[in-house]
């Protein structure tokens, strides 16, 4: 009773490991980070038969225990550290029935660590289709393990797996490969030097660059110094080890697996003939991108309008129902408009995450990497930079983390540096509201002008990213070997459950992450806008009444004059006007200035900030958009948001580095302050200059 089994899910990428995790844990899962690093840690609880509970960790996908990235390091660190609280009682290796041979390599490595290891053969539903048949008894006997043949798609075999996990104590821990076979002399000496340690574990410590938990470090420092071989020799031994492992696997599969190629139907070949074609491949890729942008614009419009009006009436309702006072004002003029500035963008952000999840899940993303590698290389990037650049349209933070599988450090660094130029979802709120204000309605070949403008902004983002990559490639003097290996997985119809979970998870973390900042900023802004020092603010009513005493103003006009006089002399007005000279050449007034300054916490704060500033002292409850449209330019007269100032703002937001979280991630991933500071200064200066030029030409 109460005993929890620690289970680690391990497997190659594209084996459906995460589907297995979802099938086992359902909604009982949480996503966090490993302490000190930004690798995602997914864990969950699974109820097993007989009241037993399992704590399941979904480890990052890896092809082998020879780690070549931070994510893969996590796997080996956990498996080598018996003192880790997550150290598995049982390892579950998830494999794909179509790639069994390659998947088994990792299986044999884990088995050699003498950890009880189960084998899951996933995608069993494809066996018929591919003409594969397996002799499970034979495989279990010779791999010395228990096998669960499952299909997460058809939802079969999950209960078998649960039973096997429950009986984990019966699983054998006999290793697959005897390390002596690789090189008798070397491994003999190694064992003599460390007689109490497992030979394969020692070998991993020598060949890997792994950080160990504090407790284990002492034991292993000496091992890592056991260098009787050069790097090249070690690698030759690793190659020999790999060959031996494959010999072992091939011998077993020769009997345990039969593939009748004549029965195999090959969807992959047919799809690839088109999707990776020299011409059609690119045409299709362009069409897919176009569709995504049009969809984000069109499909999200209805729910967005709805959310906007709900918040407007919520604000009004608050004012009518709650007693008059500072708290009601804070709620109705500060918090509610601030929050609406983020909630309104949930539909669009969810759509974006949905498309990215589908592209990844279906296996299409790898084809894009393949198609784009040669082109990207010309700009000092890798084909794999396409994934960060595309997922950067959701958020630069996961995008920068996704650069980890780029093999060459130079290509990776350049990708990290230019990714923030891609249009992230935090820019979307700013773009959408400004586009709807300054770009006319109308259609061009069925695409609306507004959608085309948005598309153009995305293209400017990509274009700038690629162009600056080109410059960086010329400037940066870093020598690093360029390797490039990418698996081309099978095409799969994305599982709705997986996609839905990803979309919900990502949208939630976006909304709550940004929501916290926005809430705090709206409260601070509301205070700054509602209070002010000196006579001008506190005596506004008398000043205005005296000033306009001779004119016959209606009560309404008078009230609005008082409100704007107050706002101008509030704390925020004073600050805003102090910075106004710097931004006036760009076509902005001090209110936009405040919104830009607060955007440095996070861009999406822009709309919320304006919403808060405009609603202070304003009694008509209106949508954010209508309020912005009503704003007048205090110097030039006419509407504040004109075509010129609008374009200038759009360009400023396209280029400026206004995201502290991104800077923090870049610092972490590059391990230096130099790169984030360079990003901040160069991108923002560039944004200022471009916005200035744009406004001066267009006005």
């Amino acid at each position: 009773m109460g005993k929890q089994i620690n289970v680690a899910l391990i497997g190659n990428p594209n084996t459906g490991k995460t589907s297995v995790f979802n099938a086992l844990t359902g909604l009982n899962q949480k996503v966090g980070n490993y302490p000190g690093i930004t690798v995602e840690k997914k864990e969950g609880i699974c109820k097993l038969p007989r009241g037993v509970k399992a704590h399941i960790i979904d480890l990052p996908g890896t092809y082998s225990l020879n780690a070549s990235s931070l994510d893969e390091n996590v796997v080996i660190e956990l498996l080598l550290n018996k003192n880790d609280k997550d150290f598995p009682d049982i390892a579950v290796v998830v494999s794909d029935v179509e790639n069994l041979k390659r998947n088994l390599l990792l299986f044999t490595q884990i088995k050699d660590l003498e950890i009880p290891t189960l084998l899951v053969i996933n995608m069993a539903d494809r066996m018929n289709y591919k003409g594969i048949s397996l002799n499970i008894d034979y495989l279990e006997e010779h791999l010395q393990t228990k096998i669960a043949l499952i299909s997460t798609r058809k939802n079969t075999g999950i209960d078998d797996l649960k039973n096997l996990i429950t009986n984990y104590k019966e699983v054998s821990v006999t290793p697959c490969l005897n390390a002596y076979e690789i090189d008798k002399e070397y491994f003999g000496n190694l064992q003599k030097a460390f007689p109490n340690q497992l030979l394969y574990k020692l070998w991993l410590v020598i060949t890997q660059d792994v950080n160990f938990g504090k407790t284990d470090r002492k034991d292993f420092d000496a091992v890592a110094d056991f260098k009787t071989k050069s790097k090249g020799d070690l690698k030759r031994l690793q190659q020999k080890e790999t060959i031996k492992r494959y010999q072992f696997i091939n011998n077993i599969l020769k009997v345990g697996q039969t593939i009748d190629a004549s029965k195999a139907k090959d969807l992959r070949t047919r799809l690839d003939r088109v999707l990776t074609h020299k011409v059609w491949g690119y045409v299709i890729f362009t069409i897919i991108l176009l569709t995504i942008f049009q969809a984000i614009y069109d499909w999200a419009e209805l729910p967005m309008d709805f959310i906007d009006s709900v918040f407007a009436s919520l604000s009004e309702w608050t004012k009518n129902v709650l007693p008059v006072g500072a708290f009601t004002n804070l709620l109705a003029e500060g918090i509610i408009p601030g929050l609406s500035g983020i909630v309104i963008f949930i539909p669009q952000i969810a759509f974006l995450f949905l498309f990215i999840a589908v592209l990844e899940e279906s296996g299409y993303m790898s084809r894009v990497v393949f198609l784009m590698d040669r082109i990207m290389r010309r700009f000092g990037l890798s084909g794999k930079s396409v994934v960060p650049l595309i997922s950067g349209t959701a958020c630069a933070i996961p995008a920068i983390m996704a650069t980890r599988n780029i093999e060459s450090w130079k290509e990776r660094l350049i990708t990290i540096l230019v990714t923030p130029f891609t249009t992230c979802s935090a820019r979307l709120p700013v773009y959408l509201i400004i586009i709807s204000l300054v770009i006319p309605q109308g259609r061009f070949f069925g695409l609306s002008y507004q959608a085309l403008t948005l598309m153009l902004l995305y293209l400017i983002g990509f274009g700038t990213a690629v162009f600056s990559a080109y410059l960086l490639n010329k400037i940066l003097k870093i020598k690093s070997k360029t390797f490039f290996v990418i698996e081309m997985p099978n095409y799969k119809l994305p599982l709705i459950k997986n996609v839905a979970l990803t979309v919900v998870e990502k949208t939630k973390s976006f909304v709550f992450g940004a929501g916290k900042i926005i809430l705090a900023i709206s409260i601070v802004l509301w205070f700054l806008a509602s209070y002010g020092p000196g006579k001008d603010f506190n005596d506004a009513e008398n000043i205005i009444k005296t000033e306009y005493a001779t004119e016959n103003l209606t009560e309404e006009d008078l009230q609005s004059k008082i409100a704007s006089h107050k706002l101008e002399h509030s704390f925020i007005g004073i600050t805003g006007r102090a910075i106004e000279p710097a931004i006036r050449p760009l076509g902005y007034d001090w209110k936009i200035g405040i919104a830009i300054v607060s955007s440095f916490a996070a861009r999406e704060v822009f709309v919320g900030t304006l919403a808060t500033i405009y609603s202070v002292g304003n009694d008509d409850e209106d949508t954010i958009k209508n309020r912005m449209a009503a704003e007048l330019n205090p110097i030039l007269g006419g509407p504040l948001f004109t075509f010129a100032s609008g374009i200038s703002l759009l360009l400023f937001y396209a280029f400026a580095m206004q995201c502290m979280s991104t800077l923090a991630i870049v610092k972490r991933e590059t391990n230096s302050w130099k790169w984030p500071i360079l990003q901040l200064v160069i991108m923002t200066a560039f944004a200022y200059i471009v916005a200035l030029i744009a406004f001066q030409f267009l006005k």
Partner: protein
Amino acid sequence: MKDTLAHLKRGERAIITDVSSNAIPLKLLEMGCLPGNSVELVQVAPFQDPMYLNINGSHLAIRKETASHILIEKVTNG
């Protein structure tokens, strides 16, 4: 004649005879790029680079430069 993988044409098959392990990442070896294994060129991007291969049942793409460090013997179609 010493053929390398970079010389393979679309649709052709070959057997890997040798890999120069210093120029090839371990990861590629682990994905099955080892002497004795069969390889087929499935698709190429423009300029023959990168190359989309089927090595021993594993589908993967590598750059032409890497492919030129992998020695092969072509299998004549039959």
